[in-house]
């Protein structure tokens, strides 16, 4: 999967699951302020990303640093690029 495909898969999943507007999905969009998610949505976001991309997100600290949609893209791309744990 290219980075572009990954980004589009992430955006599509979030649009569908969180009922977001496609036009709002700019990389600089802040997930809380602009996309209207709240801290409680983070768990569901993790579940959505895990199932869409078949990954396991164990990185608590990395997740907490996420502010924008672009951060999510980078976080997931890094995760997919890193050698699988175990």
């Amino acid at each position, binding site marked *: 999967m290219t980075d572009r495909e990954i980004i589009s898969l992430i955006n599509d999943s979030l649009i569908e*699951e*969180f*009922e977001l507007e496609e036009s709002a999905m700019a990389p600089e969009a802040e997930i809380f302020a602009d996309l209207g998610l*709240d*801290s*409680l*949505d*983070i*768990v*569901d976001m*993790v*579940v*959505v990303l895990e199932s869409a991309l078949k990954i*396991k*997100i*164990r*990185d*608590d600290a990395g*997740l907490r640093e996420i502010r924008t949609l672009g951060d999510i893209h980078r976080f997931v791309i890094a995760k997919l690029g890193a050698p699988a744990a175990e």
Partner: protein
Amino acid sequence: MRYDYVVIGAGVSGISSALLLARFGRRVAILEQAARPAPLIGGFERDGVYYDGGFHYAGGLEKGGVLDCNLRLLGLAGELSRLELAKSGYDTVIQPESSFTFSFPQGYAALQTALSHKFPAQSAIIADYLEDLRAATRKLPYYHEAAPLSSLNLAEIHGQSLKQVLDKSGFAGDLRNLLEVHGLLYGARPEEIPFAIHAGVVDGYYRSAATFKGGGRALVKTLVKALDRSGVDLFCRHQVSEIVLSPAGKIAGVNCADGRCLQASGCIATLHPQAMLKLLPDTVLRPVYRRRLNGLAETPSADIVFMRCELKRGSAPGVRGELERGSTSGLCGARRGRGGLVKPAGEKACRRHKFAGRNFFFLPPRGEVLLDFKLPQDKRLLYLNFSAANATEICGLTAILPALSGVDEKTGGSDAYAERKAYIGELVRQRIANLLPEIGAKLTVAGVATGKTLKRINLSPKGSLYGVKHKVGQFNPVPKTRLENFFLAGQAIAAPGVLGAITSALMTVGEIVGHEKIQALRHEVICDDE
């Protein structure tokens, strides 16, 4: 009457939540669908004999233990009598085919000694493992005082499973079975259960295993008395049919199935997460959240056989004498009769049957998966609870035969169902009679509960023992929801059992009044004791 909070469900988590909220000045009502509070752990009486339903024994009830502290935090100090189970063997594990037997003695030190004695080659890994177990509990919120209170802890959710921990140390065979057998207390297999949750459940038992004088019924009575003192209103036979929202989308109260309604500005739902979803309009919680909750895995179901056991006074040896010798091999029948030589340790002990204060786990044949509930019923793991039987002549025993959840949905009409119940009752009675011949002739089946019964009492959609499972990689709900002043509590949030239920109440009320206040109160309670 307008309440600050209405709590849905008068189980242990609901009552505990209400008691804590009242302690922080909130006006609280609890609505319970059943005719009485906590119908599961309250057990039942039949022909003058009491049977424990959902409560069998507990860990951490010793002075300063985790459950002891939490019960005192609820304001129940000094109201319950603790009965310690058999000192040298509260849980006896028997593998009938191989005659393998092991009894779990009270306390970590004794357990480590007993395990090392039985498995000398493994004594080093046993010591390390027990230390790892204790260390894991120090990270659990509201278990250990210093544990962090973060509600989102991915490391734990995706952390190591019990299986991974046991594999790493190379545990195998009978020893491994002993370390896995308590999985029955939370209903998940070793590869599923996060090691931290496993540790949080078994640590208390490994420290000390006890029951309450009067069993689960006594606990419920004490909790209800405390509700009364705290000014909490308890309404039984009130089945909540919907949570009512104001035009602004805030909690306004609840409606009951019979048309009654109750005004409240907040709500704690303690029922099964999937049953909770049905009480709110679809638009309130996000579809993705609803889907997550609807997709949560369930714990297994079980057939539970209640047996009346007629023991003659003085026919059995004193419990202390028998236990002091540390012998359990007689339980399989090999040393029957020798117990009579043991001098009873006083009148009370003399009247107690030698099995009193002991539970039994009968394992499947070697080579079978310990917690495989697809095994034939005569080979499957079977648990017998003798812990409450400090009685003299007649006592009520509970045997649990775990089963796959959802099985009863296929059973036909009422005749077929009654037939199935009678069959299971007799099968379990015979299995126990064969395994423990000393009491075999004294057992009669008094009642059988199935997945269908559990479905009715627990309101778990598939008749599961503990509702939602705790599983590596599965995100169980947290207390807080997107709906303002709407919270969840119950075993799905923290862990199963009385301890899990109270812990969930602490987590949930902590979200409402502030965790630091609950922590301070807990600290005060612990310090009071010292």
